[in-house]
């Protein structure tokens, strides 16, 4: 560290030198992923302590942080992890300080954790500046110092650049993440996990936007202190991505920016479900994560010996010569393997005893597991001290939690999760009766002398998150689903000939808003002029013409009249006329031209048709009222034009025209008189 300080001192100015000396490279490791994807294992052991190729995951993360140049790491974790760290040698490292923050009982999300850290921060101010936020268990070998420096430089130039997110090209095709970045500045513009639907203004601001579906989020962020305070300001932020990132992107008032950094030559991956557990394990065996591989000593681990074909073997593991082992597998210390056993692409922990004629393929057997003769285990995770009795078959996708016993000749169904603990019930489920039935189902024992409960599956698509490779038909299903998604859109796509649908939609929304505004105005008894202002702003935002406004307002007025309690037709007429009188200032503002007035008349007509028996009889009266009593809300020009237009219509359309025929003839006569 001393040498680094010297180097920094040479490069930087005096004031900056001071600053950079004070700013140690710090990291926050949220060692509690707050996710339920690894249940039932995480009920008994926090996920960072689960073994990944026989080494607890947290050791990978800490070893990486140390070698990446981090000087101080704050581990936010539960008591169990603190105990583990106390027993390990992580506290005794030179130049690398590990500090633990015990997570309080009530923290259920990354948001809570960061808020808690912020509270502590106020008292101790232990985090001095930009820090690396590591979210969950991450296996990586990427260097960080350079990236932190980049982030600092950017921050210096642009106050608003508060975070740099690490992403990498993904090799898996079955996850979905859509992000958009500016290809020049690498600023993150869009982040969504299932949809692509972004605002057009994005394109106005950025002439070129790179939209990616093949990127993977590494959950490694370089953050400035603002990130913590943002979490405090927005106390409803829970998830780092769903809430925080999307919140920052959506908020263009403060204008905080997030940038991305794509890594290509180094490795970084997060374990979030059984599937990624499988992926990362394979990457470790294939040495992509070098130097964090089983034959290197990077934490308290005992090294294994690397043999040909990617076989890692402990020196004291015994294996009968007749046992057949295939490529890329790991075998731990003090493990015995019987004769005639086939093992392929698997990891076997310490102190296991595997019987004879066992088939283990693509599976993860943890420590002290007993597998008796003649068992078959494919693509499964078998935790510590599990016993699989003779002849049992464990189907693909199964997870056997700690100390489960699978009975003789029992077949564990595919994708089932087995634990000694009962499945915790969702507290908010109010279907008490159903629960008892489920209880019975859960009692299902694992064969004669077995012990454990088969958990009810929470979701249908467990195949997405489990160890075995995704079956072909499911893959096709995914692609089809995406396609279907698009086909739905297709129906909306219009040709240039008829672009009316979208306008209609807008019109509908607009009318709903106008209705809401009007009702509020009635309720709060607002002056008509103010209501005009509100409607005007709506009109501008929806880009509507004043005829639309007039129609919408009139519609709302009549709706109010009809919905006001009334006992007779006369009552209804009185209601309607009083509402018209009360709000003529508002309506009058929009019906200055005869086009707009005709719109109002036709709206009235429409409404009459809808509620034929009530309002229908009043059509002529209301028309007349608006003409006579309320000085020219409707002018005779408009009424006459309307009647002319209607004259050519079908007979069925002329009901209301006929109703007001005397009125119109009268109008015509008077206008003729005036002309004469």
């Amino acid at each position: 560290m001393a040498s680094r300080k010297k180097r920094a001192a040479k490069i930087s100015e005096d004031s900056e030198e001071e600053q950079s000396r004070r700013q140690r490279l710090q990291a926050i490791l949220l060692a509690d992923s707050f996710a339920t994807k690894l249940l039932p294992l995480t009920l008994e052991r926090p996920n960072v302590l689960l073994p990944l190729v026989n080494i607890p995951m947290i050791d990978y993360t800490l070893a990486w942080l140390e070698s990446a140049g981090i000087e101080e790491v704050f581990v936010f974790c539960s008591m169990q992890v603190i105990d583990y760290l106390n027993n390990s040698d992580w506290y005794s490292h030179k130049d690398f300080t590990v500090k633990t923050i015990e997570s309080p009982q009530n923290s259920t999300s990354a948001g809570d954790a960061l808020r808690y850290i912020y509270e502590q921060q106020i008292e101790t101010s232990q985090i001095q500046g930009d820090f690396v936020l590591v979210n969950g268990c991450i296996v990586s070998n990427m260097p960080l110092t350079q990236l932190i420096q980049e982030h600092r430089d950017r921050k210096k130039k642009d106050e608003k650049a508060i975070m740099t997110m690490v992403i990498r090209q993904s090799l898996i095709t079955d996850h979905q993440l859509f992000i958009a970045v500016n290809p020049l500045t690498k600023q993150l513009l869009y982040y969504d996990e299932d949809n692509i639907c972004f605002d057009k203004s994005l394109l106005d601001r950025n002439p070129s936007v790179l939209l990616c579906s093949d990127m993977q989020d590494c959950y490694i962020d370089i953050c400035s202190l603002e990130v913590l305070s943002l979490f405090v300001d927005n106390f409803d932020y829970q998830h780092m991505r769903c809430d925080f990132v999307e919140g920052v992107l959506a908020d263009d008032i403060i204008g905080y920016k997030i940038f991305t950094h794509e890594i290509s030559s180094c490795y970084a991956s997060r374990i979030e479900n059984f599937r990624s557990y499988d992926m990362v394990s394979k990457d470790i065996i294939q040495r992509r994560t070098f130097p964090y591989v089983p034959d290197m000593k990077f934490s308290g681990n005992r090294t294994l010996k690397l043999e040909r074909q990617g076989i890692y073997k402990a020196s004291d593991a015994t294996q009968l010569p007749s046992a057949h082992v295939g490529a890329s597998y790991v075998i731990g210390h003090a493990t015995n393997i019987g004769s005639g056993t086939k093992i392929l692409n698997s990891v076997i922990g310490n102190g296991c005893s595997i019987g004879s004629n066992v088939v283990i393929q693509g599976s993860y057997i943890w420590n002290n597991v007993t597998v008796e003769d003649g068992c078959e285990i494919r693509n499964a995770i078998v935790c510590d001290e599990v016993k699989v009795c003779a002849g049992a078959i464990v189907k693909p996708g199964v997870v056997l939690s700690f100390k489960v016993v699978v009975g003789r000749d029992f077949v564990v169904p595919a994708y089932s999760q087995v634990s000694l603990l009962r499945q915790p019930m969702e507290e908010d489920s109010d279907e008490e009766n159903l629960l008892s039935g489920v209880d019975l189902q859960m009692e299902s024992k694992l064969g004669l002398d077995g012990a454990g409960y088969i958990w009810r599956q929470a979701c249908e698509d467990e195949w997405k998150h489990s160890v075995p490779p995704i079956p072909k038909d499911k893959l096709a299903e995914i692609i089809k689903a995406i396609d279907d998604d698009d086909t739905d859109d297709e129906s909306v796509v219009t040709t240039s000939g008829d672009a009316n649908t979208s306008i209609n939609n807008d019109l509908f929304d607009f009318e709903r808003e106008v209705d809401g505004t009007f009702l509020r105005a009635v309720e709060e008894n607002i002056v008509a002029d103010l209501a005009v202002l509100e409607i005007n702003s709506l009109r501008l935002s929806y880009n509507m013409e004043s005829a639309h406004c007039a129609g919408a307002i009139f519609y709302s007025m009549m709706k109010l009249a009809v919905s006001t309690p009334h006992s007779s037709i006369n009552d209804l007429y009185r209601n309607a006329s009083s509402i018209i009188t009360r709000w003529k200032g508002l309506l009058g503002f929009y019906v200055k031209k005869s086009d707009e007035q005709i719109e109002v008349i036709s709206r009235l007509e429409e409404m009459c048709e809808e509620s034929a028996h009530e309002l229908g009889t009043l059509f002529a009266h209301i028309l007349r009222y608006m003409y006579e009593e309320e000085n020219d809300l409707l002018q005779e020009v408009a009424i006459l034009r309307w009647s002319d237009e209607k004259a050519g219509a079908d007979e069925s359309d002329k009901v209301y025209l006929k109703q007001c025929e005397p009125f119109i003839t009268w109008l015509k006569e008077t206008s003729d008189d005036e002309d004469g």
Partner: protein
Amino acid sequence: MDFQVVILAGGFSSYLVPLVAKEVPKALLPVANRPVLSYVLDLLESSNLKDLIVVVEGEDAALKVGGWISSACVDRLHVEVAAVAENVGTAGALRAIAHHLTAKDILIVSGDIVSDIPPGAVAATHRRHDAAVTVMLCAQPVSGPSESGGSGGKDKTKKPACDDIIGLDSLKQFLLYIAKGTEIKKDTRVKKSILCAAGKMEIRSDLMDSHIYAFKRAVLQEVLDQKPAFRSLKQDVLPYLVRTQLRSDVFSDQSNVEENGNGNGKNNMQNNEVVLSQILSNASMPSFHQVYESGLGTRKTHKCCVYIADESKYFVRLNSIQAFMDVNRDVIGESNHLSGYSFSAHHNIVHPSAELGSKTTVGPHCMLGEGSQVGDKCSVKRSVIGRHCRIGSNVKIVNSVVMDHATIGDGCSIQGSVICSNAQLQERVTLRDCQVEAGYVVCAGSEHKGETFARK
């Protein structure tokens, strides 16, 4: 090359009133005293594309255009002029002339382009990828058009921003998304399947569709037949092809049967062609189309490609009065290699037969047509003056276009205006940002700004 070229020359565009009139269809509007269509023909000839069909809207316009073509270039090019009804749209126009189309690939060029981007490059890209459609894109002009003040009235120049929104793959070879900026209300939706297949998509709003397309004939005709509602190539046909590129139904069995029915001997040849194009397009990595297709055996795909022109190339479509002014200014100014004239040492062209009065100056970036007369003490700057114009004394013409046979009286001052042929300005008229229709007479001594003169 087995390419047939269709030039969509339009008719009497309403955007260009009063410049276009019954006598002058859009294709014959003069740019530096040459019809705009001649620029397109030269461009195509430079790429050795000589088999052309010029499609004109309306019989009258077709006669006019045909007359000009037969007088100008019948010896060099093989040009057919086809008239279609007005207001059928670009897709409708192609439907109407479908029986003329016989070649394997069709190059469709808008007739109002002034550019130096070789259309041959588009054709080559099209062939190389064996694409269903190839679109030429070019950079959107960055600077505001009215930099030199030569604007033709503010309200006219403010045409709706028709930014194209274009999605490309990471190698900038394929077109994954296209939409017109004005059509998108708020949200931009991209098809997931295409994005997932391609992995990355770069969405650009700084590129512009240049209205030069290469289509596979079979695909184009199939789409035109299947979708009778499609009116516009750009707004309907192209987006449709782009949308459906991963589940193409334009190559339905029906069309295959049809193809095969045309000639038995053709079948064999076609197979050879397919193999050849596959070799060509597979030279590098397989495209995402092929990967996708091999993933799901039943789906067929077609490719939509792009050719992105170099930024240094010149490209303008003459589709507004502002564009007309710009093109005229540029062709005799910065991009004078387009005009085909040789410029004098003063960077201007004064025809030898033109007569200049005493103390009259013709500045750089000007053009004075054959037989025009200019009186004494005149000043002409950055303007194009047509043939046989008569210009009085003490006239100032700046940033303007004066077409053939116009008469301008003494003491006039003209800025940023267009005077159409045979128009007459009497003495001491002051015009700024005006357009004067052909044959119109502007009264003496009047002063106008931003007006359009046309007979009702």
